[in-house]
């Protein structure tokens, strides 16, 4: 029962962080979105219950695309490399973001 409540709280907090990230990206505040996107990735590692629409590789890709628009391009390359090398073994990838994010 307690575990269930903890899970619910964690999911709720993660959802709020995700909502914040989306708002920042829509406003073009990429620099500000980066640390929160990293937080989303940490949320994904910590959550015992994971919302179905969230996939770690998808979020990594979004983080890399966001970093590309900042001074963190070296970090973006490292993330892209990771996505490139792991994508084939991750069938739960959904590419849920607008098509402009992809080529």
């Amino acid at each position: 029962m307690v575990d269930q409540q903890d899970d619910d709280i964690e999911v709720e907090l993660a959802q709020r962080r995700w909502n914040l990230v989306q708002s920042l990206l829509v406003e073009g505040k990429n620099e500000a979105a980066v640390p929160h996107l990293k937080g989303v990735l940490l949320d994904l590692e910590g959550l015992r219950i994971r919302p179905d629409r969230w996939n770690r590789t998808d979020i990594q890709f979004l983080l890399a695309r966001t970093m590309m628009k900042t001074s963190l391009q070296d970090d973006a390359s490292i993330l892209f490399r990771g996505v490139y090398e792991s994508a084939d073994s991750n069938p739960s990838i959904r590419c849920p973001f607008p098509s402009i994010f992809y080529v």
Partner: protein
Amino acid sequence: MSPPTRIRASAAHFLASSMFENGVCKDILDAKSLCMSSIRARRKHLGPDDSVTQSSMTLIRDICVSGDLDWALWNSMLPRSLQISATGYHLRTISNFPARIAAVTATSLGQLLSYSNDGTQSIIRLFNTETWNLVSEIKLSESVYAATVAKEKFHIIVTRQQNVSNSYYWYEAATSQSPSLPNLK
């Protein structure tokens, strides 16, 4: 294209672009490999599609600009089944993919390009638009390619548009020379 393939191809594309910007030789070699991986993934899963062709062309153009025109021309044949208009580069009516890529390259480099085909081989020449010196001449005689373009014979000139910085225009003529520009042999 499945989501994993799509994200893998996209990651390869952006990684390759980043590597080209770094300009390190080792990175460029790696970037070429990634570029081809990205293009192959698209060819395997998609038919003709404008965005796919544009992204492939952008990658290959980056390789051209990096100095390896020969590599780019040969590998640009791989996605030639995706022969559709390249409106972003104002090369709408050039039907041959390598020629389009070469023209894009010439545009990027500010060079004049001559492309001709005599039925047995195709020759692409690049000229410096300031000195009119021949910069590069590439003969494409591969049988498959020759068969594809055997009936094509055209001449492309890319030059800088007057009074408009970073803007170019091109035109295509049936003859081997333009009345307003030096004779091209």
